[in-house]
């Protein structure tokens, strides 16, 4: 047969590696490429021990107090989505970064980068959302900046917020504090925000009942900290999802993490959308969920405290910290088999079929 010879001689498929000489969207995915950007270009320029903790916020000693300080930029598209908009996100996201350090959020800055041609109505709507979100979170916007860029240089509106808060005495949370035996708690369903955004994207629009979960989590954090003094680390699994946050904790603490697939709460409609789009909910963004690593003896009390809080009603214990397979997160499937929950390489791209 002619195919035989052809198959034997032509079997090869190696290709040269494409150069990585410029920024790709994947560098903003929160996965492995983001980590490389940080390690290779950003950190070497700025080395210092506070920055190198790589937590969601820096905790700074000022006199007798400890101040949490953080900053975040918001470039979400579309600007308005079910459950919120870029304004609510910009307030809640920064409040949450402070809260994950155990801090009580106090003050925010607000920087707006406006694209020429942005309707004032749009800006007014976003500012109203910022006002309401700040009031709900109990923070005050005390300083700000505005810049305008030419049409075509921005997606209508980019927002940056920075925030400061006070860390109470005795609270010391960090991603390097997870120990074997600790439990992993999750405050509610995952993937809501990412699917809500995706359902609105040009070219991907699909009918969806999913709303973003964007919300300020600091009161839930207070409830968690009140329930036990043995909280190791808190994270809000935003960009890159639960997988990215847990991989980061595993790497920083040199521990393994074992998840129980069945225990992870996911809304039916989010699961359905992920199935259709070929996405894994573990990698989809959240804006109102809390991951807590807690000492084993504290797990029940913290879980109960979460469930009593309106933002933690669906809280679950989803896994355990282990000393086998350090730096690797695994998931036990319903079949009893185990698989690796890896960091995302670049962007999570929809599959062909």
């Amino acid at each position, binding site marked *: 047969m002619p195919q035989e010879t052809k198959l*034997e001689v032509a*079997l090869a498929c190696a290709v040269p590696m494409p150069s990585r000489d410029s920024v790709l969207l994947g560098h903003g995915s929160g996965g492995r490429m983001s980590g490389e950007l940080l390690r290779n270009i950003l950190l070497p320029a700025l080395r210092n021990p506070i920055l190198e903790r790589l937590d969601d916020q820096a905790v700074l000693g000022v006199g007798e107090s400890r101040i949490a300080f953080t900053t975040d930029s918001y470039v979400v598209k579309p600007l308005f989505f079910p459950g919120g908009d870029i304004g609510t996100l910009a307030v809640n996201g920064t409040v949450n970064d402070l809260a994950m350090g155990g801090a009580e959020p106090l003050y925010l800055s607000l920087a707006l980068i406006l694209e020429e041609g942005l309707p004032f109505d749009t800006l007014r709507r976003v500012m109203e959302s910022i006002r309401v979100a700040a009031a709900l979170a109990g923070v005050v916007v005390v300083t700000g900046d505005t810049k305008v860029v030419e049409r075509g240089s921005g997606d209508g509106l980019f927002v940056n917020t920075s925030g400061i808060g006070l860390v109470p005495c005795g609270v010391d949370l960090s991603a390097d504090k997870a120990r074997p035996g600790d439990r992993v708690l999750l405050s509610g369903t995952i993937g809501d925000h990412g699917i809500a955004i995706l359902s609105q994207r040009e*070219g991907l629009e699909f009918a969806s009942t999913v709303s973003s979960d964007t919300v300020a989590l600091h009161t839930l954090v207070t409830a968690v900290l009140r329930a036990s003094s043995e909280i190791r680390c808190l994270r809000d699994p935003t960009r890159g999802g639960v997988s990215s946050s847990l991989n980061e904790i595993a790497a920083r603490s040199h521990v393994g993490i074992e998840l129980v697939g069945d225990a992870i709460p996911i809304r039916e409609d989010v699961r359905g959308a992920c199935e259709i789009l070929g996405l894994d909910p573990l990698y989809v963004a959240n804006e109102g969920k809390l991951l807590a690593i807690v000492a084993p003896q504290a797990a029940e009390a913290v879980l109960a405290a979460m469930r009593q809080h309106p933002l933690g009603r669906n809280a679950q214990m989803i896994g355990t910290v282990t000393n086998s397979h350090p730096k690797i997160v695994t998931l036990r499937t319903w*079949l009893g*088999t185990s698989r690796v929950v*890896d960091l995302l390489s*670049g962007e999570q791209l929809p599959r062909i079929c």
Partner: protein
Amino acid sequence: MKYLDEYRNETIARRIVDELGRRTTRPWVLMEICGGQTHTLMRYGIDEILPRGIELVHGPGCPVCVTSLETIDKAIQIASRSDVTLISYGDMLRVPGSHSDLLHVKAQGGDVRIVYSPTEALKFARANPDRKVVFFAVGFETTAPANAMVVWQAKREGLTNFSTLASHVLVPPAMRALLAAPRNRVQGFIGPGHVCTVMGYREYERLIAEFRVPIVVGGFEPLDLLEAILMLVTQLEEGRAVIENQYVRSVTYNGNLLAQKVMAEVFEVCDRKWRGIGGIPDSGLRLRPEYSEFDADRIFGTEGVTADEPAECISAEVLQGLKKPTDCSAFGTRCTPENPLGAPMVSSEGACAAYHQYRRLAIAGRANH
């Protein structure tokens, strides 16, 4: 979730595995054709719970992985033009061509967009008459009907700014090539459920007649695959070789005749080069001459683009089941999903990428011992 959870039931899975254990008396080498099936097997660790002796070999059914290097190069060349909007399925963007990939073209200012359905590309073309809109039409018989449909629609509407870079591949000729290869080890196939949803399974009877190999058309959920494996092993143990359909909730003998009709209207069969496999006669679909006004290859003059695939990676052996991805010295070191050396590392449905994503632990464990 209805229609999914029923196929992810542990009790039934255990029952099938037990039954497999009872029926298996000697080693069998089976191949799942589809990348989607490979992905499910890896994601749920199904190969770990099979009786010893049943070996699964991962077939060439990942459309992203097998799209030829020169087709990617053509897409990159076309997408780099300032007057073009190239519209593609998402995971094609990461596939490396000879020197770049579409993600880099996008980063450098190329207008590259992702859609789930080619009809979105058509919509975009209608709304943007000043842009030359090119749909990158790849995939197996599964995506071909929808891609044919938009070309047919574009012709009917007289759209002049829409074209497709069409490079479809067909499953049965690839199976024939694998079976005819002198070193073939595959003794039974899990047939491609989605492809057969469109095409039916009549075509596979010829392969069985010629090579006496059992084929069971299988679905994509864990229980689908376990049941298909059980059906295959039963045939092999009984010395039978027939076509059977496990995926009855989706696949019929004749398939979707309407879809086949539109495919035949727009496309014709041609020889096709597969990445990782090479040229296979009559294994592709291209636009018929009557539709050449929608042929991006002709419009943008990329017909002459060729690319040679240097022989470095072992994907050929992986696709034939002669080696596992983990047998490759570059696996997980020089070849990773971020920097794929070979096709099966590119898409999450490629065998190497699926191993890398879900099996790193086993690999790390092996390295430590």
